[in-house]
């Protein structure tokens, strides 16, 4: 079965490597990511004000368009996933708001789409045992820290992704690929998010703590599900290095890049040139290239 796919803006710019590796891995797993036509920005934040329906229109349009083509919509970016899944749930559960939104966008969408993150597709639709059979190059000996961030997990009642305090789905995924999942206390903490625009020092501090905690727990690489997080914890490592002189950079990969390695994709297709901290020395050392 193929899956409708909403890439989101960053997947076409800063996170092309995330997008490409996911598409390529899907083909090897026997399905295709069918990109939605005419998609727009997801809105980037779910509005905090309950009466701000304008902010829900972009995700509502995306959902309504997707429903005309299928029943399942998948995303890669954790922020898009958060916004789209929460909007979907709101449209499903709140008749009054549903009607208002539908009137505005001139659609009749009932909220009956299943919104799944790509990790959920792998776990629920493909199955980790099936996935394991497709692993050609197990990531044996690689100590990888699964960094969830907050968008996949919270608010718990709406996202219902995994246990909000101690999720394990990401760990299961990494172990399926043969890697050693490193447990670290900051795995569900905020990366600093958009603070990197207005108060970059705040975001840098968040990232420094996350990275430090993972390194202290023995991680060699940090694995991300989100371009926003990746921007803060990968691309900002140069800022951290300037502030904390003893900080040793650590590579940050998208989970689909690790999936690509494990499934035997040529490393030149994995888009490592977009990763700020070069992962190649580590991957070479581990014999994974």
């Amino acid at each position, binding site marked *: 079965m193929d899956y409708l796919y909403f890439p989101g803006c960053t997947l076409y710019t800063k996170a092309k490597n995330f997008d490409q590796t996911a598409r390529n891995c899907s083909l090897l797993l026997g399905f295709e990511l069918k990109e939605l036509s005419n998609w727009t920005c997801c809105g980037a934040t779910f509005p905090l004000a309950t009466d701000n329906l304008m902010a829900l229109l972009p995700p509502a349009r995306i959902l309504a368009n997707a429903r005309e083509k299928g029943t399942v919509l998948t995303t890669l970016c954790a922020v898009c996933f958060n916004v789209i899944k929460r909007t979907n749930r709101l449209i499903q559960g709140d008749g009054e708001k549903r009607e208002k939104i539908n009137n505005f966008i001139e659609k009749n969408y009932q909220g009956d789409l299943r919104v799944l993150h790509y990790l959920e597709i792998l776990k629920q639709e493909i199955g980790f045992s099936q996935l394991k059979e497709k692993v050609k190059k197990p990531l044996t000996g690689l100590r990888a820290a699964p960094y969830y961030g907050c968008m996949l997990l919270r608010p718990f009642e709406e996202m219902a992704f995994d*246990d*909000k*305090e*101690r999720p394990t789905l990401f760990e299961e995924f990494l172990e399926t690929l043969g890697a050693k999942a490193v447990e670290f*206390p900051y795995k569900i903490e905020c990366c600093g998010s958009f603070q990197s625009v207005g108060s970059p020092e705040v975001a840098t501090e968040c990232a420094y703590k996350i990275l430090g905690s993972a390194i202290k727990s023995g991680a060699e690489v940090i694995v991300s599900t989100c371009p926003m997080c990746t921007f803060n914890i990968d691309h900002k490592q140069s800022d951290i290095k300037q502030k904390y002189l003893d900080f040793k950079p650590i590579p940050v990969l998208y989970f689909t890049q690790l999936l690509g390695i494990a499934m035997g994709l040529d490393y030149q297709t994995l888009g490592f040139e977009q990763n700020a901290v070069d992962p190649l020395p580590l991957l070479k050392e581990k014999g994974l290239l």
Partner: protein
Amino acid sequence: MGDNGVFVKRAMVIGGGIAGISSSIDLGNGGYEVVLVEKLPSIGGRMLQLSETFPTLDCAQCTLTPKTVETGQHPRIKLLTYSEVEQVEGKAGNFLVTIRKKAAYVDWEKCTGCGLCQQKCPTKNPSEFDRGMGLEKAIYTLSPQAVPNKPVINPSHCRYFKEKKCRVCEKICPVGAIDYEQQDRFVEERVGAIIAAVGFDLIPKESFGEYGYGEVPDVIDGLAFERLNSASGPTTGEIRRPSDGKIPKEVVFIQCTGSRDPERYMPYCSRVCCMYTAKHARLYKHKVHDGQAYIFYMDIRSTGKGYEEFIQQGMEEEGILYLRGRVSRIFRDGEKIVVWGVDTLTGRKVEVSADMVVLATAIISQKDTKDLAKKLGIAADEYGFLTEVQRKLRPVETEVEGIYIAGCAQGPKDIADAVAHANAAASKVQGLFAKHR
């Protein structure tokens, strides 16, 4: 009416904690026979687990033991411990109660309480009475001052029951009281009135994902701290943390853990945590002079005689640091426990690198209270607490004439309130009995 139409002036009290004991002694002294049913092997209840009590810092066991002994020796109180109410029939003046006497695998008629079996038993398991911190033999009494002082065998721990070998207790018993073949027995008691005083439990610390799901060994609950602080506890009263036995120098106490949290846990206030947390922090300071105690709180509810003064003393004279705010996360960092909280008075985030954390977990009903309510034909609320027939003016009566409630079975209470409630229930029974001359 009894079989012959006579109103039976004999009462049953279900639950042998401080409430049940208080009701029983009142009724016994009033001249009525009492059957006291307790599901554990001995009476005393939760209070027996406590170290000192607020606001006087009296030793709990020193105040309770005379009461348990009095109950055990009272000529008009019949103790049925290790027993549970199975069925209740009839009405006021003539209830017929069927009671299951659980198999103790020890013939209590023969047993002299010498304790040899417990000394020689080779099997040790974490003790439930000591909140998993101390060790308990497979044949055990709850405490050295147990009333009655008769042991029971826990078949899920006993080597003989599990592997069909050992039988050490049988060999050592000088009076041949061990009986591995013993079965549960059923007895019937006819009574005219019943008081349900089945007490409370604590919400398990495993419920709190944000506090580590109970898997960080040095994050304990309030009752565990009582055991640590108790001279009869696993550390003989020294404050030593469970993981490595070190004396903790920074201790964080978190009030309202699971209480006043309608979205996730219990919406109600557990009523005793403000006071016992202040007591814990003060007792800790009395034993570890260079230690620092932090208390995270929402409000301080110290509405009892001498209670507010007790809190103030802790703040002003003993240097306990009160922080008004909640704790969002606790995790392990090497030997330390990192506590993330907020001080809402200064508006700042607070991070404490602690050695031990004590959670003042919410009081909840016993898990079988609802079931008992069904057997008695009385109401329980959505949280399993027994419901009085009228909130203000009839606090111990139920819809069923002749059935009364006492203590924390009705809702969270401190000891003084539980005893007053139990006294009231006993006097209601005596009033009922006096009506039928």
